[in-house]
């Protein structure tokens, strides 16, 4: 049987080899591999590789589109300017703070959601949908919806606070409260994705491990720390890397909720890059800022990778 089909294959191949256009349509494996990977390579070169080179180059240039003057070499001028720019420090600090608050926050809330969602519910779909909807909702929509939640007069948050006997808060007039509202929104928006990843990890842990632990008399808390958490580590680490890198790029939610205000107290580095590039058309300075963000996220990736390897 096998030989029969092999001969057919050989015959079919010989026949097709006689026509040049068939050979063009049916190239050797190596040529085919190159051809198939070519679109990916071209696209990544145009959208990632070339822009990265260009980014680093432009960050050493004086290039402002408003003046119309041609680009001139600026050396480290943009970077020196940055170090003395209080708005740079403020937006960078805000970005780091948002990362430090919302990444662990989303992890904790996501873990709680996943543990709850892992209970043996009779109907799975309402729980699944409740985790998927926040993930699928555009960040900008989440920002707008929560801005309405936190509206000082007609928002549901202040309504609940007042019903509970507290004073309503004018969320977006104070840097602190606005920042808190933004962080809460980001945690809500990102925790359900964390939960989905952790839930998938939970479902791969064999039940027999828990049964054995129960036989040995280990309580629920001990089971969680000695079985669940160690076995979840790989999925948690991967989710954390991605969450941290997206947190460093935070833009949509603060932009839609406060536009960075009051003042620049809730503006992020991404918002400052956007402002310098699109509003001020100062591409040199915008590039230098972007290089800093790039370095930050490369640093995060490196630290996490080292952590994975160290604890392996």
């Amino acid at each position, binding site marked *: 049987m096998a030989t029969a089909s092999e001969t*057919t294959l050989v015959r079919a191949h010989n026949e097709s080899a006689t026509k040049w256009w068939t050979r063009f349509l049916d190239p050797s494996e190596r040529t085919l591999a190159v051809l198939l990977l070519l679109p990916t390579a071209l*696209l*990544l070169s145009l*959208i990632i590789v070339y822009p990265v080179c260009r980014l680093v180059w432009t960050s050493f240039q004086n290039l402002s589109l408003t003046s119309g003057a041609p680009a001139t070499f600026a050396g480290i001028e943009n970077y020196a300017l940055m170090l003395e720019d209080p708005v740079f420090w403020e937006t960078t600090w805000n970005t780091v703070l948002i990362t430090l608050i919302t990444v662990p926050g989303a992890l904790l809330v996501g873990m709680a959601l996943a543990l709850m969602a892992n209970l043996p519910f009779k109907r799975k779909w*309402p729980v699944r949908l409740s985790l998927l909807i926040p993930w699928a909702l555009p960040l900008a929509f989440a920002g707008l919806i929560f801005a309405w939640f936190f509206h000082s007069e007609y928002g549901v948050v202040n309504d609940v606070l007042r019903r509970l006997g507290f004073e309503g808060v004018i969320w977006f007039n104070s840097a602190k409260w606005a920042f808190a509202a933004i962080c809460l929104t980001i945690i809500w928006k990102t925790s359900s994705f964390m939960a*989905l*990843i952790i839930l998938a990890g939970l479902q791969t842990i064999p039940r027999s491990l828990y049964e054995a632990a129960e036989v040995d008399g280990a309580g629920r808390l001990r089971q969680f720390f000695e079985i669940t958490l160690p076995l979840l580590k790989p999925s948690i680490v991967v989710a954390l890397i991605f969450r941290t890198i997206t947190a460093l790029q935070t833009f949509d939610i603060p932009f839609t909720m406060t536009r960075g205000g009051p003042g620049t107290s809730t503006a992020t580095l991404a918002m400052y890059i956007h402002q310098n590039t699109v509003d001020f058309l100062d591409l040199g300075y915008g590039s230098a800022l972007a290089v800093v963000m790039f370095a930050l996220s490369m640093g995060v990736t490196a630290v996490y990778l080292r952590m994975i390897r160290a604890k392996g």
Partner: protein
Amino acid sequence: MSHETTTNRSLLSGKPLRILIGFILVVNGMFPALWILFTSLKTEAELTAKPITWLPHAPTMANYLRAFTDQPLLLFLFNSFMVAILSTALTLFISVLAAYALARLQIRGRDLILSAIIAVSTFPLVTLLVPLFEIMRALGLLNTWIALILPYTVLSLPVCTLILVSFFEGIPRDLENSAMIDGCTRLGALFKVVVPLAAPGVFTAGILAFVNSWDEFLLALSFNSNPMLRTLPVGITLYQGEFAFPWPVISAALVVGIVPVAVLIVIFQERVVSGLTSGGIKG
């Protein structure tokens, strides 16, 4: 069997508590979307009444009418749809080719290419705002769909490729070989045999790509400043009211923007979950 687990696993699996926990999960996930739906159905008078009402007293569609007439919401929807669909199609086409090569062909440096693709998925696209802005400007592509379609394709390419590689690897080679014996070329076999068999994978990848594009905000805001070319998130965010931010109209517009993705998610929920948790991770 379920009785046994209930007694074994103590209080936490008790039925009343389980219902309560399910309720908490559903409220956490659905409340914001539901609240904006309620808001959109209220009259302006009801919205500014104090204390605020929760359920709309006299539901009205007036806000929806205004959402479509005050601003070109239909155009925003159209832009979002076209950009998302075209970038999804492009992503799928490119990643099907790449994934087939990575799953089936002998390639030197296959692992290196795969790690490069994973590295791209962690790449902070925001940092490329400046050079991409320059490139699109130089190519005269600012204020076109293409300015968004190309970066969005890169945004979803890694996830889609990884999902498709794992699906293609699961398809028996015999099926492909017999198609080639029947006179199909290798590429013919890819599109006539492998892709149809991996349809669930292609679909999953497609949904993820669509949602990624539908949700993107920063590049859409930066590259397409012309109001006629705004996508939905940008269009709604930059809605200008005559006086204050027009919440009644905004809420209706938000509902309009949530519905398409919600429908996708409701229909294909299991597929989306498997795609998110297996092949690719990006949030």
